[in-house]
C-alpha cells in the first residue's frame, strides 16, 4: 500500500519512493513510519513475489531489501533481479547477524557482496539515522 507523503524533510519538492521488502511485520511497520515521517512515499512488500508485483506497478527511487525472506536467500535473488532489470536503481541490503539467526548463510566477504551488487549493506538491528545517511548518499544526484 502507498502511504501518503508528508512533505517535509529532504523530499520537499519531489517526494521520493522507497520500496521496503521484509517479511518481519514489526520491522516493516516501524521503518515505514519513520520513512513516511522523513517525507518519503513507502511501498512495502513481505515477499519476493509481492515485491515483484509492486515493481510492475511503479518504479521506486530506492529499494531496501532484507536478505532473508521466505527462503534464506530470497533477498539475494530479489536484489539480483532488481539490478538486472534496472542497474541504476539503488538497493540497500539488510541482513541480520548470523549468530542471531542461527543460519549458516551469510554474506560477509567483499567478493560475495560484489556479486550481489547491492549499493549498501546494513546489519540488523538498524539505526534509523544510519539508514537515512545511506539513503541520502544514494539519492544524491
Amino acid at each position, binding site marked *: 500500500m502507498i502511504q501518503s507523503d508528508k512533505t517535509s524533510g529532504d523530499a520537499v519538492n519531489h517526494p521520493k519512493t522507497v520500496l521496503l521488502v521484509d517479511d518481519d511485520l*514489526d520491522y516493516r511497520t516501524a521503518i515505514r513510519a519513520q520513512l*513516511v515521517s522523513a517525507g518519503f512515499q513507502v511501498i512495502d512488500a513481505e515477499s519476493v513475489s509481492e515485491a515483484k508485483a509492486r515493481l510492475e506497478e511503479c518504479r521506486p527511487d530506492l529499494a531496501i531489501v532484507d536478505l532473508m525472506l521466505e527462503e534464506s536467500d530470497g533477498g539475494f535473488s530479489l536484489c539480483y533481479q532488481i539490478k538486472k532489470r534496472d542497474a541504476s536503481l539503488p538497493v540497500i541490503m539488510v541482513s541480520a547477524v548470523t549468530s*542471531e539467526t542461527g543460519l549458516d548463510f551469510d554474506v560477509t566477504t567483499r567478493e560475495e557482496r560484489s556479486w550481489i551488487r547491492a549499493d549498501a549493506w546494513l546489519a540488523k538491528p538498524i539505526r534509523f539515522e544510519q539508514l537515512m545517511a545511506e539513503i541520502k548518499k544514494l539519492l544524491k544526484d
Partner: protein
Amino acid sequence: METLRLLVVDDEAGIRHSITRALRSYDVQLPEVDTEVRFDIESASSGEEALRLVEASPPDIILLDYKMSGMSGLEVLQKLQEQSRDLLVIMVTAFATIETAVRATKSGAFDFITKPLTPEELKSAVRKTTCHLVAQRKARKLSEEKRRIRFEFIRVLGHELKAPLGVIESYLKLVQNRISGPEIAAYDEMVGRCLARAEGMRKLIDDLLDLTRIESGEKKRELVSIDVAEVARAALEAQKPGADQRGISTSLRAPEALEMVADRGEIEIILSNLLSNGVKYNRDGGQLHVELDGDDRTIRLAVRDTGIGIGPDDAAKLFDDFVRIKNESTRNILGSGLGLSIVKKIAKLYGGKVSVQSELGAGSTFTVVLERRPAEAAADQLARPVA
C-alpha cells in the same frame, strides 16, 4: 576397548612382577557400564618414585603397598589426596587389621587387599575399582552435558524474550517522538503490534512456568479419577471465540463420559495446547475436530485441523524445546515454541506418547495416547526431572 593406566607401587621387586604378570593380559569386561578395559602397567619401587611418576603422567588406578621403606603408602595416599587427582587407590598390605583398613580408607583409598595376594583377589579388586572409576567419569560427563543443555535453554529463552521486548521498545520510541504526527489514531497499528508482542511474551512465560512445574515435580500432582470427555468439552469451549472469529468450525466426538486417573491440570494443558495450535495454524473457514476414545488400558485423543500442515523434516523436530517451524505460512503466527514439547513431557508422565500425521497444505492430526491408570513407576517419575 578403553585403556587405563595402572601404577604398581611396592618396594619388593617380586611382588611388583607378580602383580604386573597377573594384570598384563587382564581384559576387564564391564557390561554394567558398557565398557571393556585393558591396562597399561607401570611400576615404582618407592613412594617417592611413585609421586614423581604421578606428576609426570597421572595413572588412573594405583596399587599401593602400605608398608614401604622410606615414604609409607599412607603418606603417599595423603599427598595424592592433597593434589586431588582423578584416580583411585587400592591399598595392599600384609597387616590385615581393622585399624589399618580404617586408616587407609579414611585417607581416601578406594579398596583394600591383603598379602599374600591370589591373582583372583587381585583381579576382583581391580575389576571393582575400574568399574567404579568408569561409572564415576561417565556420570561426571553426563552432568556436564546436562549443564550445557540448561545453559543453551537459557540462552535461547533470553533471545526469545529479548526480541519482542526490543520490538515493543522501538514502537514506544516512535510514539514518544510523535513520528506519525499528533493524531492518536495514527498510532493504532503500532499499539496493536505492541499488544500482540506483549501477549506473545506472556504466553512464553506461562508455558515456561508449566514446563518448570512439570520438570521440577515440585507441585504436588493430584492423581484422581477425572472425566476426560468433560475436560475436552470445556477446553474446546474455551477455544471457540478465537475459532469463531476466523470462521473455523469445531466439533467433538466423544463418549458421554470417559474416566481416567490423572491430574486434571495436566490434561487441560495437553488439550489447550493442541486445540489452540489447531486454531492458530488453521486456515480461515477451516475445521477443528477432536476425537476421544479409549479401551481398557488407554485413552486416545486426536486433534485434527485443516491448516497449513507440516513437512516430514519439520515434523521430526516438532516436539523439541523452542522449535517453531518458520516458513511463509507461519511467519505472522506468534508462538512460544514450547507448547508441543510440554505436551510430550506430560504424555510421558502417563506412559503415553504424542504423534503427528500431516500433509502440507491439507492439515495435521495430533494424536496423544495415555494410560488410563498410569503405573506407579510413571507416577514416581514425577518427583524427578522428566528430561
